[in-house]
């Protein structure tokens, strides 16, 4: 059972022994092909592309959480949002993308934090289109926001996740902001007829 604190050694172990691997470039290029296809399908309406990526990520999150729970052997929910942040950064990102973003910029109420990505495998090989709009409108890795939103909803946390900066836009860092909206109650069975 995972202890409340994420231990680096444990995640490295899970990543190395429990996760089947594929070549990173297959994943990266597949994601690139997806984003490119969306840009085409939505006629370079990047706001819509962001939305679609978030939606796809949400669907992935709903699935991925089960894999996360199974692979990390987690039975218990985190006791607070800070612990959740740790688990996302050190376990979740580690076992699925082999990176560990930095947790920073907590608000004093402990309900908002940022993940700063030193590495972002999805963005390897990428340069946004030079059309004067993409760098202002497209969040290339927006799928990750949806993944977090979906995955956390499954463990009964409603969150909002969005990128606030991206090296692909010319910013010096890639930063995602995550805010806890509320904890979700158990759904109850419908009243019997």
């Amino acid at each position, binding site marked *: 059972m995972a202890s409340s604190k994420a231990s680096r050694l444990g995640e490295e172990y899970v990543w190395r022994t429990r996760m089947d691997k594929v070549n990173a470039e297959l994943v990266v290029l597949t994601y690139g092909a997806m984003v490119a296809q969306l840009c085409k399908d939505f006629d370079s309406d990047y706001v819509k592309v962001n939305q679609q990526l978030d939606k796809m990520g949400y669907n992935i999150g709903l*699935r991925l959480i*089960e894999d996360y*729970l*199974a*692979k990390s052997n987690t*039975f*218990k929910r985190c006791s607070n949002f800070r612990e959740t942040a740790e688990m996302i950064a050190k376990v979740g990102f580690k076992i699925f993308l082999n990176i560990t973003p930095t947790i920073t910029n907590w608000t004093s109420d402990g309900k908002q934090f940022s993940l700063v990505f030193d590495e972002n495998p999805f963005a390897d090989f990428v340069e946004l289109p030079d059309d004067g709009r993409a760098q202002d409108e497209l969040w290339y890795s927006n799928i990750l926001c949806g993944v977090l939103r979906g995955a956390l909803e499954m463990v009964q946390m409603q969150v909002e996740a969005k990128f606030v900066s991206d090296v692909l836009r010319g910013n010096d860092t890639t930063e995602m902001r995550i805010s806890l909206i509320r904890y979700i109650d158990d*759904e109850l*069975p419908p009243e019997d007829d």
Partner: protein
Amino acid sequence: MTVYSFYIFDRHTECIYTKTWLPQTSSTSDGPSSGGGGGGGQQQQHGPPGTSTSTSTTTGSGSGSGNTTMQLRASSADDAKLIFGTVFSLRNMVRKLGGDDDAFVAFRTAHYKLHYYETASSLRLVMLTDTGTPSMRNVLHQVYINLWVEYVVKNPLSPVEHKRGVGVKNELFEMALDQFIRGLM
């Protein structure tokens, strides 16, 4: 050990999968494994809820008085609802009494044992076995991590959520589950 039936409920409390294993008619196959259970051939007559749809075959040779009531039992969908209501109440009660760290694991009646496993994502697995079966917690855990995650969750052709069970009943999952459970019996 005899497994009677297996249910999966999702976070929306819907029963998205049901499977029953017919009680074996030959005593040779379930004899040795359920040796400690006592009752031998008798035992198959006392199927728990969920085997109700298949009991018609055993009534002919039946001697148990419970069979009549069993036949009157409503459809298996109602069984599932009943089971969910029961385990959900028990789970809530256990948490209320023992704190959030406590977990409802199983209960036993005179005729069967019900095993319960809940994931952090509110997926609930329920298995009904004969009374002599030891804890199935690990078995249910294996079903979750090796079968559910690999064959349902990761299957691109299966929808993300399984309204009315859509996507759960796929060939790989069903085959693997059946093999896994039969391997235990």
